[in-house]
């Protein structure tokens, strides 16, 4: 059973309470460092690594922004671990990517207290700046988004978030629970024994569970799942041929930002930047000769198909690919729709469990008989 502790606050006091909680965790030695979203000096919110209890004041874990995927940061911090106890406060999509990276030994969770925030979505980076300019705060966002109002002026939460069915994360030690918590409070939910110990050490008193949470999470999940399925079927109709796919990707400039931003594009060195793809002038001429003309940079469709083959099994649907595209190609629906098929083929769901083996990491002799259709 989970244990809950309630943080109550007056209007505009949420982050102060949360800062107090993290301060308590650091002071009482529950952890030695916290990775948590923090307000920057002028504007914007970024994940920050806090090691001093006196520096927790700017925390803003519910800020609707994920400038880069926290899973990549988690990898930087833990792949070669420091040995210090670290709490990581991440969004559900980032947690799911962390789960996948941990199976790939690119995240090490040994000294980590994994914490998630309830997520109602994030704004694109430029939209978040506008959101802040207009006086938006995490509190106002949580309140409005729970009432179904995520549209602010001329922008909405990221497309990935609009179809994300994971407002609350699994596989964590602690959850910062805001959905269904009621205005003026958030709950800290200790899920694992590690989480319970940390909650005890933080100095907060356990209390009642938020009454409306389960219901609210379920409702939101159902609505987002419906939106997701609608998006899938629309996209499958629209992009059902290579021609349509090439059209969709026609603005691509082969900058590979989407794979840089992707938390589960796990290769240390991407084949597309190796010598394999450094060709001689002769070679280009030959290709041009073959069909009379060759678009350059070439291999655009090839690159995206290879990425689909490679990482769609681990795709967590965070939408960082769309966010990173300098030419506004909406890649996320393409990859999520593909991931839906590839993951289903192996009854796999990226980020669901730390124990499930990644599909390309295992094989059996008596499986997938339909591929060859041959029986000896």
């Amino acid at each position: 059973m989970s244990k809950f502790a309630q943080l109550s606050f007056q209007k505009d006091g949420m982050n102060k309470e949360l800062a107090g909680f993290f301060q308590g965790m650091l002071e009482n030695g529950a952890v030695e460092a916290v990775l948590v979203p923090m307000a920057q000096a002028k504007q914007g919110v970024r994940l920050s690594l806090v090691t001093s209890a006196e520096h927790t004041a700017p925390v803003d874990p519910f800020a609707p922004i994920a400038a880069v995927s926290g899973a990549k940061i988690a990898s930087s911090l833990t792949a070669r671990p420091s040995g210090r106890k670290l709490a990581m406060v991440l969004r559900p999509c980032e947690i799911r990517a962390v789960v996948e990276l941990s199976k790939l030994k690119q995240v090490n969770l040994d000294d980590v207290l994994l914490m998630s925030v309830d997520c109602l979505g994030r704004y694109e980076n430029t939209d978040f700046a506008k959101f802040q300019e207009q006086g938006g705060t995490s509190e106002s966002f949580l309140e409005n988004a729970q009432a179904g109002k995520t549209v602010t002026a001329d922008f909405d939460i990221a497309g990935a978030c609009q179809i994300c069915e994971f407002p609350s994360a699994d596989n964590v030690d602690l959850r910062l629970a805001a959905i269904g918590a009621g205005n003026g409070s958030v709950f800290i939910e200790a899920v694992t024994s590690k989480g319970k110990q940390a909650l005890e050490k933080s100095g907060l008193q356990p209390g009642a569970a938020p009454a409306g949470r389960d219901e609210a999470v379920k409702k939101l999940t159902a609505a987002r799942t419906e939106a997701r399925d609608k998006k899938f079927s629309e996209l499958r109709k629209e992009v059902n041929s290579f021609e349509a796919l090439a059209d969709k990707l026609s603005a691509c400039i082969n900058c590979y930002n989407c794979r840089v931003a992707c938390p589960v594009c796990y290769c240390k060195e991407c084949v597309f930047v190796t010598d394999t793809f450094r060709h001689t002038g002769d070679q280009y001429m030959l290709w041009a000769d073959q069909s009379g003309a060759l678009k350059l940079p070439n291999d655009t469709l090839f690159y995206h198909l290879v990425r689909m083959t490679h990482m769609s099994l681990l795709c967590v649907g965070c939408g960082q690919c769309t966010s990173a595209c300098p030419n506004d190609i909406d890649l996320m629906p393409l990859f999520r729709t593909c991931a839906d098929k590839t993951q289903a083929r192996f009854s796999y769901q990226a980020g669901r469990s730390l124990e499930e083996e990644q599909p390309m990491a295992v094989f059996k002799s008596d499986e997938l008989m339909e591929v060859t259709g041959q029986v000896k």
Partner: protein
Amino acid sequence: MSEFEPQIVAFFCNWCTFTAADLAGTSRLSYPPNLKIIRVMCTGMVDPKYVTKAFLNGADGVLIGGCWPGDCHYMNGNLKARRRVANLTEVLKQYGIDEQRFWLRWIAASEGTMLKEVADQMTARLKELGPSPLRTIGQMAM
């Protein structure tokens, strides 16, 4: 107009299927010349990139031939290949290249006749299906 001749890129494992092709040859079995055979050491080294690239460059079909499960010269390369083929099929299928154009078959070194049969069947199937949809797009759109 002459009949459509499909181009099939065939990745054959050195130990089983390529040897079967050799056997088919020495046994004087004739099979369609539509297969362009690439000899690889194991189906486990057929990177999905090779298959994707073959289709993008206009192949009408891709055939991967390897040892039966349990017979792999490298213990389990063929089992890895089967997972990769299943995965890649799911990707390509969404855009119009499905199992009818992308085959994985187990053909042992002694099964020269099966090699001929598979080559016949695949060529005939692709003749029915017609050219790959990727042929019409051309390099200017890729």
